[in-house]
């Protein structure tokens, strides 16, 4: 089957909006890492009186869909209040682009994560609201909603692939049921590691395919 990008993805990739750096940003956050693939940094300039995003820029170490989702997510966020922008979902971003190939949906998740992290940093540092999740099964579940199963582009919670989440001290144990489709297993486990590790209080993560 042909895996291809929509014209809108190509347009945003060719001429990305809001690319660059805001030197005096009120908040900035980097998500992803070069080791596991893509990385995105989002910069926000926020009107502190109205909590409205007056300017937003991003940089991307990533593929065409990473650049395109960075472009669309910053378009969507510009002019919105931080609460409105925080509510933007990866699905909305992908829909705005006319869809993404399932295997590329994680790029959209990454862009949304970048935006949300920057907003939460601002909320914590400027507004004194600490959004850092405490270590609960709920918090882990919410993070795992950002891990997509590549062949279908749907998160592993919705797909009911997560069978068990255990917490002992700071050690988190996640059991998933990914069948024998081994080629997607390793990158998915990497993503679970990445997402669960960033929850405050997590000391170690183990993932088993049961």
């Amino acid at each position, binding site marked *: 089957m042909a*895996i291809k*990008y929509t014209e809108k993805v*190509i347009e945003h*990739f*060719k001429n*990305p909006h809001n*690319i*660059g750096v805001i030197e005096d940003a009120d908040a900035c956050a*980097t998500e992803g890492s*070069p*080791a*596991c*693939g*893509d*990385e*995105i*940094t989002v910069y926000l300039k926020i009107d502190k009186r109205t909590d409205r995003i007056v300017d937003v820029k991003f*940089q*991307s*170490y*990533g*593929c*065409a*869909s*990473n*650049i395109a989702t960075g472009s669309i997510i910053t378009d969507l966020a510009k002019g919105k209040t931080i609460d409105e922008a925080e509510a933007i979902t990866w699905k909305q971003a992908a829909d705005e682009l006319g869809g993404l190939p399932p*295997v590329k949906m*994680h790029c959209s998740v990454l862009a949304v994560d970048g935006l949300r992290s920057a907003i939460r940093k601002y909320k914590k540092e400027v507004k004194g609201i600490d959004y850092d999740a405490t270590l609960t099964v709920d918090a882990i579940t919410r993070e795992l909603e950002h891990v997509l199963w*590549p062949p279908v582009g749907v998160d592993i919670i919705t797909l009911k692939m997560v069978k068990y989440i255990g917490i002992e001290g700071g050690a988190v144990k996640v059991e998933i049921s990914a069948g024998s489709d081994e*080629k*997607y297993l*390793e*990158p998915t486990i990497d993503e679970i590691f990445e997402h669960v590790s960033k929850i405050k209080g997590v000391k170690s993560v183990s993932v088993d395919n049961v």
Partner: protein
Amino acid sequence: MIYLDNFRGTMVAPEAWEAMRIVATEQYAVPAPFTQCGTGSAELIEGAQSRLAAAIGASSGEVVFTGSGTEAINIGLLGSVRAQTIDKPEIVTSEIEYPATLAVYRALEKQGYVAHYIGVDGEGRYNLEQLASVLNEHTVLVSLMGVNHMIGTIEPLAEAGEIVAEAARRVGRKIPLHIDFASALQTQRLDVDAVHADLVSFSSNKIHGPKGVGALYVRKGTKIVPISFGADSYSPLVPGTPNTMGIAGFDKALELLYANFDADVEHMKQLRDRLADGIRERVPYILLNGPEGPGRAASHLCYSFLFIEGEAIMMFLDMDGIIVDTGSACAAATLKPNYILMAIGRNHEEAHGSIRFTLSRYTTQEDIDTTLSRLVPIVERLRAQSTIKPPAS
């Protein structure tokens, strides 16, 4: 279109296309005895077998045409191991083989074969000491390749063949050696005796013949059984009606390949070097994947462009009508970085920014100069956009 992805597949040479047209519309009879048209088709295939056999130091009866390079690999590897009855059988290949070979090995592992995957050095050359160390009385198959498709490394086949032959003498029986020569055929000559090959697979599609045709050399006396079944009017190993149109195209492609072989290889090498020099002069922070100089296939170049991602480079070039390939995880359906780049010691980030340029005899200097003129600003632009910056000097 500037097509620099010839290791994936090539344009059909116009002369090959004409040869195919004649067979498709005029000499279309199925090979058969006695009748003029039936024997004519049979002779066409025999002629093609003879041409390939002569080029590799074999005899005509040792070559069969298959439905693809992948099918040749499957027939050669599976047919060979199934023909042997050795206790606790072991099979040997390397970490950087073509996906078809690795897929057959993984399938055999599931059936209980013990597989050894030998490593390579930083330029992709086989670890021959490791090869020698894993061969034993249980070994039933060794599969190696002539040129690595991702990094262009010319593998030391003669030395490897000698090691396998020596092990065979030690255990007192033949250890079949399969060579995947698909990516090598464009730029390397082969003498099956010099490398001690028992099985060699080829693909028409890599040398300006049509897709859907391959060939398998089977040394006389090599134990092999069919892996699929049907009318064996052509060969028991490749049952069914032979693809005479495809074979005619492959045959013409082989004729053209050897018509100006050395000059064509030199032409590709000069243009490849022009591309490499241009990139080196104009783009900082790059890594050459695979060897430099005579250890590398003449038509092959693969660079990692640091701090940026290869799929984005590939897509920008594609929009300018320039076709290349990348080993980036982002371009793979599995989201894993290319296993060959990882095997030579590249990290994820280095594999991420890899671009492979593979030339053909049809590539022109203008193609190379246009590619360079487009590539340089693409790399600069993506680096300006990237979260990762070069270290401050």
